[in-house]
């Protein structure tokens, strides 16, 4: 990252956009304490990530890039493990687990070991872990990639609802159509630098057009052996 300066208001849904390798996941890692910035500081809900790491970790829910799951546990056991660590009682953990697994359509696979789950199931398990303890801030790294349309719709509704009651959502995504409908703040980065930061209604044209103009132009290439031309 290169002198990235960014502020997200409480209750906002901030979409952090950029091409592969631009630094989106690195930013999420620095904001969630997975990576130490070489300079500068990260503050989440008024807490400094470097000096108060445990306090920050208690109030955030994270869907990390590599999902953060254990092969030796089943889907439901991930939630049973997570709840008590965040201070939930066993009864409360079980009740919330049941509800989340139903909401994310994971009910049928709840006793499946993670190593035997599909990518979509693993992603939904990690999403459930991020939501279980009702965090004040959600960091979601590409939450819509690899999940089915029904869960995607459920998740969009869920994020809108929690944001309305004050939960801040910071997400990265490549699916611009979803971002356009969901986000209340849009930040675009290129080569580690922010090149756009505004509300969606402040975009001069469609999100896709702004993205192509500022971040990454579409590729133009002839592939005659495939009988097609990209332009």
């Amino acid at each position, binding site marked *: 990252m290169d002198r990235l300066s960014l502020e997200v208001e409480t209750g906002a849904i901030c979409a952090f956009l950029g091409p592969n390798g631009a630094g989106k996941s690195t930013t999420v890692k620095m904001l969630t304490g997975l990576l130490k910035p070489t300079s500068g500081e990260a503050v989440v809900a008024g807490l400094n990530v470097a000096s108060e790491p445990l306090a920050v970790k208690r109030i955030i829910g*994270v869907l990390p890039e590599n999902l953060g799951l254990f092969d*030796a546990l089943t889907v439901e056991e991930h939630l049973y493990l997570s709840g*008590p660590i965040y201070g939930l009682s066993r009864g409360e953990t079980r009740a919330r687990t049941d509800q989340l697994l139903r909401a994310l359509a994971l009910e049928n696979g709840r006793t499946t*070991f993670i190593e035997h789950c599909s990518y979509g199931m693993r992603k939904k398990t990690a999403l459930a872990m991020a939501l279980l303890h009702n965090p004040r801030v959600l960091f979601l790294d590409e939450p819509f990639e690899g999940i089915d349309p029904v869960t995607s719709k459920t998740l969009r509704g869920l994020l809108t609802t929690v944001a309305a009651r004050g939960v801040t959502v910071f997400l990265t995504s490549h699916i611009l159509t979803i971002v356009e409908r969901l986000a209340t703040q849009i930040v675009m980065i290129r080569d580690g630098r922010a090149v756009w930061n505004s509300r969606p209604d402040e975009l001069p044209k469609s999100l896709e057009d702004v993205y192509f103009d500022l971040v990454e132009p579409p590729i133009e290439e002839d592939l005659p052996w495939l009988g097609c031309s990209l332009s």
Partner: protein
Amino acid sequence: MTYRDLQKLGSLAGNNFFLFVFLLLGQSGGFLQVLLGLLLLFPFSSDPLRSIPSERLQQWPLTPRIAFALRLASVWFSPVAWITVGLIVWTKSFQFAATFVGISALFYALGSLFTWVPARAPRLNILSHVPDFGGSIGGLVRKNARELLSILDPYAGLVLTLSATAYRFLSSRPEPDAFMILSMLVALTLSTYALCLFGLDTASGFTRYLLFPIRGWQILLAKDVAFLTVLLILVAPLHLLAGLAAGLMALTVGHHSSVRYRVPQTHWRFTGGAPLTSGLLQAFLMFSAGTLVARTNAWVLLPCVALFAASLWYFGRDMDQAGLRSDA
């Protein structure tokens, strides 16, 4: 036979129990030789079809019968199997070699069951019955106990425990000191794992450790509780206190290399690749503490607990300050 298969022998390098058996080979009876043969054989006795991505395997025209035959035959693709059998015929007898083949076939069948059955019938996965240990880190302890039970070290310990228990009941005058020594030997079978407590954790798992709002010592303690629980179950029929003292020493030394040098391990193999100097120090302290506790009284456990607690605190703080060494 591929170069990759040959590399599997590396899993035995740096395994405390393997080195111990190897050193005693000249003076040992047949039992330890069979054990060494099994230790050598196991790195090759994995399911050969597991190393092929499942998506690719589904496209191959393998009938279930051919796949089963491949799995059964895989252990005998290994030249180590033939060399071991040849050595046993040369140094012992043909009958002894036949016994070895029988025992290794049994072990192999069990190993195949542990890997093949859970994927198809999750309810039959015995590891799924490991309970939650309660408390805020009880779920982590359960995960760690399952990981520990998915390597071969505790099963080598189980063979020793069962043999010793049979000796206790079948011998007319069992040697009293034998159980103290066997208890520490069982601890030795697990001790290499104590040097690589994070060896079975993936990058994904490391990320989760770093995201949880818990301190380094708690992550380490969850590993230790799983280790001590399995160890105490194994040494309960032998000499519980000597085993406990040895286990505490194994962990006290093991925290250092576990936290500072991550040595990746493979499921259903023996733990290996741990630093030799740490292994030697570990073995010395384990046998000293175990013998002292057994020969004097249980109060000797107190300094063992104190050393363990100091190591837990120090290396837990180390994890908090530097993070876990991982590629997360």
